[in-house]
């Protein structure tokens, strides 16, 4: 194993808003311990949080795999949910398919994917309707 990288794995439980975001807050804590610049920590934790919440809201959970190297942080959020039929549409600010219940909780404002894009240096979305989605977020360090 490459000693110059850290790999982390988290299960993202579905439909539980009370523990949603736990993985991203753990990652945030670790990035602070690594002494990574505050603005990079912020970008990473917001982008990851949004992707994590998306997996909770739309896909009944999934998993998060994170790799940290001296150069970049790569976050892969994978779910086996319904997939995104039109990624371009989903990327538009304010577009949301979240239920009223989810909106009442303050989520589902259609800012999830746009925010991920805003806070990441590279974003890749692989999705297949009926099968699931893999969101890969890269944030460069320095």
């Amino acid at each position, binding site marked *: 194993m490459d*000693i110059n990288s*850290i790999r982390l794995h988290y299960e993202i439980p579905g439909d539980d808003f009370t523990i949603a975001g736990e993985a991203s807050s753990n990652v945030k804590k670790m990035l602070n311990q*690594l002494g990574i610049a505050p*603005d990079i*920590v*912020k970008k990473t*934790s917001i982008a990851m949080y949004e992707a994590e919440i998306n997996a909770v809201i739309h896909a009944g959970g999934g998993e998060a795999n994170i790799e940290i190297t001296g150069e970049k942080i790569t976050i892969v959020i994978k779910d086996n949910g319904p997939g995104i039929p039109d990624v371009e549409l989903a990327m538009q600010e304010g577009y949301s398919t979240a239920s009223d219940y989810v909106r009442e909780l303050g989520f589902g404002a259609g800012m999830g994917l746009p925010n991920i894009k805003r806070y990441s240096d590279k974003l890749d979305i692989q999705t297949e309707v009926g099968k699931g989605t893999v969101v890969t977020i890269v944030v460069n360090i320095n």
Partner: protein
Amino acid sequence: METYFHSVTLDENKCMGCTNCIKRCPTEAIRVRKGKARIINERCIDCGECIRVCPYHAKKAITDPFDSIYSYKYKIAIPAPSIYGQFKPSFSRNQILNTLKAIGFDYVYEVAKAAEVVSFATREIIKKDGFKKPLISSACPAVVRLIQVRFPNLIDNILKLESPMEVAAKLVKSEVVNKGYALPDEIGVFFITPCAAKATSVKAPYEKERSNVDGVISMKDIYIKMLNALDRPEETDILDKAGYEGIRWAGPGGESTALETDKFLAVDGIHNVITILEEIESDRLEDIDFVEALACTGGCLGGPLTVVNPYVARKRLRKHVIEAKEKSMPKTFQEKYDSDLVWTSDIKYRPVMKLDEDIIKAMKKLETLERINKELPGLDCGACGAPSCRALAEDIVRGIANETDCIFKLREKVRELAIQMAELEAKMPPVLDREKGKR
């Protein structure tokens, strides 16, 4: 190496080395070593949570003794607004303030009055717009220091205006000099404090070179003195000059309601403050211009150096607020305050959680930390002296603790050793391995 002054300190003789404080400290700044709690100076934010939770009263705040006022010819008391909540409602605000004169001060000036000046300045900032939203109040120095060590992205959100205490000290000094009561170098201004954090902010200010306050006296320390003097009915002076807006600063929401905006959020209790700051740092709070965050539950009325239960104190304060309203006291901010309120120095991020200066080394340490953490029992019992298993793992990679500090790990090792010994004991050297009775 920077040195850190802290008001919060330990009384070694009283400390039993229990786990109460280490588990409640919001910055994981306490470890038990050799049966005594040790405060990690660079992490401590002087919130006073440990003073509150220590069952043996071994945590204390360093403040100035009352007698220190006598080193000045002209002694001025500037009491925090929380003082009004400490006495029975039958005593008027003016009585309480005159008591300070009765016990030895020459002049009294309400910090509540200066709070109105700060409220005014804050309103101006909010009206003008163009600030980083939300503004976070700097009234509570423990919260400012919390941001400094844990929320570096929020440093720019801090309202960088001087505190009511500093403004009061400045205003009263010039007032006394102008009235010809004393010369500048004869004056000693003493803040009557509800908390340790304020004492630290006088001894080691972050917002400027030197504080305007000359000494800090704990509310607790002068409480008995004041109680004894309260019965004397002489109310020689009219000292209650602050309006209700300033008085309200003592409790949670008080600073916010003076701002004439609904777009505020007030949070009290250090652990609640942390969750709200997390929300702000992650851009999850919408439509909020101002955040009032107070380390103590109940705001300053719940300060660790106050005497009365914060909820009782809050009820008592309400009476003074209503009275101030009824007297239809004008907003006392009429006299123009010319000096600039803006901080002259600034705070910098102190990355106290960083494992190593070198990121590659930090990564190796983090990896080891995670591995050790997985092998620990996860009970967070605190018996090792660290607040949680993860904190112990962190201490191990920092080189200040050992795996066997964990009593469960130690027991495991002892058990392994015992099994090995039992196995060895059963093995006889061949020359001795004779059947019984045959010699």
